[in-house]
């Protein structure tokens, strides 16, 4: 087990820059999730840690060792690939023992380690099968087993759950998290799914267009997103954004509605701002003072209802845990606790 340090790392393909100076400190035993939309550079960064992509500039350290020029095979890192990359011509046992056989480990040690890993992953019955005889979830487990037998310094996961169906994805998510709690191996996990990131990570790194937007624990990102991108990316359904003008203790929308905010930042009044409020933080107002919203679509999920409405011409979503019988066209009054409102500068997109 080991820490991973990334210092000023950049990546260019020819003249095309894909990573612009990444700085990241992954602590020993930590589970860090790199999350972002496709093309943001998260997989490239992971492959650079693995040694499968060269580094254009900067340093990557595993423990105290600079590994910039160390080939993948000598980095002592285990990786789980998106399509599992199981060796199709080998049995499950051979797949899992391949790395140990390469190291010429004693036969009885190999056997013990493979059986231990198979036991943890519920694969004991399938050791003689070939990968094509396994279901998606089982293949996923074999890919993890291959990493598990290694006692590697670091585990890397490259969108390992994206090929599974929704239900299995939730199960495997929990299994991976439980596994990490048990083994405590430093792990870097890449996903585009913010729910995976929120549920699994010790810390989340939100990436966008080759840059890190914010690093923090799941709740830090949820409670205090640093900018509009993170605010929009974390949370489902996404945060509502209403464009307005900042005035004393409130944001005024185009139609004159006033949205109260907690502590008005020290900026000149009249500044253009984006007011952010999460759908789950909206509540129905008891009186007629709340923000007027015209209902357009109502989506019941069973656990709650999601209401899509329009406020001053802008879309807004609200989630209620109580059951309401709203009709399209109906005007509802919304309220919220000013502490849960977010303010962003419209020009820079940064939190105020």
């Amino acid at each position, binding site marked *: 087990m080991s820490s991973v340090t990334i210092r000023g790392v950049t990546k260019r393909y020819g003249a095309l820059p894909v990573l612009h100076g990444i700085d990241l400190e992954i602590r020993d035993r930590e589970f860090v999730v790199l999350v972002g939309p496709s093309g943001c550079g998260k997989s490239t960064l992971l492959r650079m840690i693995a040694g*499968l992509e060269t580094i254009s500039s900067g340093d990557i350290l595993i423990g105290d060792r600079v590994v910039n020029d160390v080939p993948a*095979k000598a980095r002592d890192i285990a990786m789980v*690939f*998106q399509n599992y*990359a199981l060796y*199709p011509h080998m049995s499950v046992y051979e797949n899992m023992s391949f*790395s140990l056989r*390469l*190291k010429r480990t004693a036969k009885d040690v190999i056997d013990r380690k493979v059986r231990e890993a198979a036991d943890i992953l519920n694969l004991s019955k399938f050791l003689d099968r070939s990968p094509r005889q396994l279901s998606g979830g089982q293949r996923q487990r074999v890919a993890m087993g*291959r990493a598990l037998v290694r006692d590697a310094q670091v585990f890397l996961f490259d969108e390992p759950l994206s090929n599974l169906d929704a239900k299995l994805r939730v199960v495997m998510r929990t299994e991976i998290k439980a596994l990490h709690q048990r083994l405590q191996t430093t792990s870097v996990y890449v996903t585009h799914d913010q729910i995976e990131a929120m549920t699994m990570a010790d810390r989340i790194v939100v990436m966008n267009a080759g840059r890190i937007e914010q690093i923090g624990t799941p709740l830090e990102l949820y409670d205090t997103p640093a900018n509009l991108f993170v605010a929009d990316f974390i949370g489902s359904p996404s945060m509502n954004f209403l464009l307005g003008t900042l005035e004393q203790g409130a944001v005024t929308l185009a139609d004159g509605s006033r949205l109260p905010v907690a502590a008005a930042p020290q900026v000149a009044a009249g500044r253009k701002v984006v007011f952010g409020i999460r759908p789950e933080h909206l509540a129905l107002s008891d009186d007629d003072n709340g923000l007027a919203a015209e209902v357009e679509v109502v989506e019941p999920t069973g656990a709650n209802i999601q209401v899509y409405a329009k406020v001053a011409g802008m879309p807004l979503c609200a989630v209620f845990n109580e059951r309401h019988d709203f009709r399209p066209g109906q005007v509802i009054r919304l309220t919220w606790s000013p502490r849960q409102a977010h303010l962003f500068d419209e020009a820079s997109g940064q939190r105020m």
Partner: protein
Amino acid sequence: MTSKLTRSLIYWAILSPLVVVILFPFGVMFVTAVRPREELFVYPPTWGFTEFRWENFSEMWVKTNFGGALLNSLYVSIAATAVALLLSIPAAYAMSRYRFAGKGAYRTFLLMTQMMSPIVLVLGLFRLMMALGLVNDLNSLVLTYAAFNMAFTIWMLQSYFNSIPRDLEEAAWMDGASHLTSLVRIFLPLAVPAVVVTAIFTFINSWNEFVLALTMMRSSEDFTLPVQIYAQVAGRYQVEWHHVMAATVLATVPVAIVFSWLQRYLIRGMALGAVK
């Protein structure tokens, strides 16, 4: 049920002219090969024969030095196949996995060599082999056959190699394998179907090749089968057609056996190469 039967009958009716055209020479070949000598030139020609003469084969074997030519053909075909594969696999791997300047031009060059008939080059090749001191040496055929087949084998192997996911090799590297180890233990086992397909093609092409063998080989003990059989016909006062045909039957049989045994790889290899 009946509609399926009628459909089958219609398809076979449409296919039958093709089947006849392909099978006719084989029929003539076989019937002539097992006939007594006296019945060779009966008029009008018939498909029947009064006696099934296996002796034609044994007589032919001795008289035409068939065994020697067979060994020559086997040596040339197997060696040419081995050389072609040994050189094509690394070339195809590099073309499939690495980016390098001139890759597209090289592919085009390979394709263009396929548009030239070997006969255009025969004179130049002869002079090349003269310079190398390889005329009348079976190894000259090994080299030229391997070279002529490599354009095809590289193309074929490369398109198949492209379909083998890179992730598998990367996973092997992460598992601690060197490039060579991952190539030998992960990559090549998965490439077996493509390797077998290209081996079959190279073998059959080498086995059947005639013009180059006729040009390079001067003495009769070095003749390969096509040249040896041709020598029974060309420039003779009397042609022993039943022996010629018996030799032809024997020359096509090994290829047919190899082909039918390996065709399952052929079909699987081609399908896998085309679709991921």
